[in-house]
């Protein structure tokens, strides 16, 4: 088993779980789904620099080979921004729950129209 396979399959599993959860009806599950998707996206962006062992992008006279620093810089800010986004969505969900008394993503606990047979979650 190669690291490449491990990373690729992890990304795939995280994406699948993220999509499934973000399609749920409760705000908290959607937040969880977005969190998992964010892991996947950050890993994917990071992986675009390819997987390299033991060559951190810390410049040294004696070293000539490094891993790609650019995806790392992008992902670093992405991780922090992910926190900002998650926090915002969580607070939005909380506020919406406090305003309406329901944590359904569409703001109410009843289905939005009759053709929709499912009742939440």
């Amino acid at each position, binding site marked *: *088993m*190669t690291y490449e396979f491990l990373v690729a399959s992890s990304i795939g599993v995280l994406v699948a779980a993220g999509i499934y*959860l973000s399609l749920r009806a409760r705000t908290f599950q959607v937040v969880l789904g977005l969190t998992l998707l964010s892991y996947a996206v950050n890993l994917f962006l990071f992986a*675009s620099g390819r997987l390299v062992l033991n060559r951190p992008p*810390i410049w040294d006279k004696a070293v000539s080979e490094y891993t790609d620093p650019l995806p790392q810089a992008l*992902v670093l800010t992405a991780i*922090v921004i992910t926190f900002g986004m*998650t926090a915002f969505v969580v607070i939005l969900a909380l506020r919406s729950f406090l305003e309406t008394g329901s944590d359904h993503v569409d703001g109410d606990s009843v289905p939005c129209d009759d053709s929709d047979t499912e009742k939440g979650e």
Partner: protein
Amino acid sequence: MAYALTLYTLVALPFVAALLIALVHGASRGLHSGLAGAASTGGLALLAGLAAPVIGGEVPSATLSWVPALGLDLTLMVDPLGLMFAGLILGIGLLVVIFAHFYLYKGEDTGRFFASLMLFQGAMLGIVLAGNVLLLLVFWELTSLSSFLLIGFWQHKAEGRQGARMALAVTGGGGLALIGGMVLLGTVAGSFDLATILQRGAQVQASPHYPVILGLILLGCFTKSAQFPFHFWLPHAMAAPTPVSAYLHSATMVKAGVFLLARLWPVLSGTDLYTVIVTSVGLITMVFAAIVALFRHDLKSILAYSTISQLGLLVMLLGFSLEMAALAAVLHILNHAAFKAALFMAAGIVDHETGTRDIRRLGGLAKAMPVTAVIATLAAASMAGLPPLGGFISKEMMLYETPEVALFGLPWLVPVLATIGATFSVGYSLRLAWHLFFGEPRDPEPFARAHDPATGMWAPSALLTVLAVLLGLMPMLLAAPLVGAVTGAVIGGAAPEFDLALWHGVNLALILSTIAVAGGALMLWRHAALLRAWESVSHRDAKRMFDAVLGFADTWVRKAIIAVHTPSLQRMLFATVAVIVALIIDGALAGGGAFTGTRPGITASPPAIMAWALLIAATAAVVNDSRQRFRVLIYVSVIGLVVSLAFVRFSAPDLALTQISVEVVTILLLLLALNLLPKAPPVLSSTPRKWRDGALAVVGGVLVGGVSWAMLTREPGASISAYHLANSKPGGGGTNVVNVILVDFRAFDTLGEIIVLGIAGLAIYALLYSTARGSAGARLRSWQEDMPHSPERHPMMFVMASRIALPLTLTVGIYLFLRGHNQPGGGFIAALVIAIAFLLQYLAAGYDWTDTRRRFGEHQMIGWGVLTAMATGLGALAFGANFLTSTFGYFYLPLIGKFELASAMLFDTGVFLTVFGAVMLTLAQLSHIAQRAARAHAEAQASLAAQEDAS
């Protein structure tokens, strides 16, 4: 360019006046009307200076480049056509300002009125003086908007608001068509410069786009000039104050369409298509509106329909595509402006002094208001086309031209219909004057009140009526030079030979004219019988039809929106994900090539495989157990931990540090939020939907995983990373390339990112700050603690340990910050670590204890952070470098030795402050809310217990 200043001043004057009036809008009516009058007078003076050269054949113009990429230049030009219209706009504008000064009632918002009026005047001047068709469109739209303000000036009246909205919908909608037509015209002609376009008539008419251009432009003209079937907005616009009607509907707004037809005459006219459409629309409008006008009872409504009819006449004349007909149109524009403005003002006077505009309640007013009677009767006679007034000459010329046009191959059609229209014109004009001023008063009450108004109120209409009379008595002296020059400008060549006179001998036109006058007199005589006949037939109400169309559009637009945009996040997200999945499949199929690339893989170590299995298991657990929310948070943190480990393994120490600290903060956030959210909501999901979503999720996961695999097994393309690695130390002064990229190479991105983060923090604060109020506040106060609490709220060991840990953690944070330029660390990571140190205090010792010891404001930190980062960037400008260029140097201090200082460090301080502020603001506020809810809960419990004790 000698005239540039004059031209720009001319167009700018009304706008400046509008601005000034708006600025002093609380001042007296005299100041408002004075400013408006001064602007109009000033404009007239400037125009007078241009009149001699323009009539002499010169075309003063000026150009300023505005948006050259679009071909939009600020070009103004005055040719005789523009001169005539500008004169009407300013001249009648001045008279309307005087009239309105006396007309408006006490306590009305004169500032708003005159400011809107001047805005409109400026827009109209812009239309007639624009030398670039795109500029013309800008002003065209501006007239629609400013006329909306004027028509709806009496905002408290429903019909005013509805009339304004209808006018805007119709003229604005036509304006959209006009934009399309003009842009197409400019594209076909190869220029948006008006003078150039006018030269290229043949080129435009030969183009296959000509019918489309013609249709769209005519749509704009016909809606603006209230031509059938778009005429209905004009009568409803009569809800406006009378000065507005006098201005907009005599000489300006509705004439804009006629103006544009005349303006583009050389380009558009002459084809069969043009002649048939324009002539028949004009003819139908003229006859139809004249018939309706005969049977209206509201003075302004009669005038509105007569205006529609007269506009139809003008459109028809221009549609003939004959030079003499164009000349007749030009003359009639002058006549109509004079008599119609006078009549509107007279109607306003009658309304003002009797309290009613219903012609059935008026009559015999000549005795009570003789001055008004003389003015209005003369103006009405000119409208009827009776000799020796101006209207007679232009109507004669019109009738003279009618046999020249054989519409649909029928040479008699146009003369017969035109004569019918003229007959009804005579009818409604005579009826207006006769029923208003002669005979017996029909209602004693308004008659008793009636009297002539102050001189200032009747003088403007008197002046216009004198003009209407003189245009008949000495047309050659008064109008011929202007009319000749204007006609030349319209047809784009020399005007034909003409002789304006009352008597041309006995010819067909005179016979038709006599028939019309006789017929009109007959209609006045038998008006009561005709009215009965008219009223016995039911008529379609255009307003109701308009409302029905609007309602229809409204319903279907709503349905369409609901069809494509269900108010359900689940469905929208499903659709979005499905589209993305489809795009990936499409890309994969189109790309071709092998699934697995040639890059050799790295064999994974057993611990790594275990970590991977842990991640997969945790992910599965999150999905499977997503209702057990606290437990799920543990699974999520396991995932985060494995991701951090992956970063460590794959040579990304900075990322690992960031991920692990963000992980802590995120879990804290979710814990705090979950405290207030439902912990384990009931399962209500339907199985089919779960399967459907699950299928989509699996497909999406397999695809993205496959894409990752395909990417990871291929060699990367050439990237700019080599540059960053090579220049990090010599150019940025740091060995941690990731940090140097963040604070130096791509510092602008980072600046944007911390600003976004700061905004998110402030938005969260705003969302939480206001939860105390309204239904959210009530729900928060009635919040029930649903989790078992430890009896010891703040365990001593934890409190003490966290206090000891604080200075240590701070030291670690500062260390990470300081070494960040050369070793893993930096502003982002340090901020998160230090935030965790403080959050630990909140956790251990409680919100209140910690909050009272807090010495910094998170809002200010966000602000100062962004400002510091920006100031660092701007500092580079002071040294002549680009924004955000960094510099560094090495310094020696005794004891410490050699050390490095980089300006990027200052930037990183900004990053640190913003991130720290945003994180703290979010979490501290959230725990504050939770604290408040818990306290309310405790108080409620206590009072409940007290009540039980008492009973």
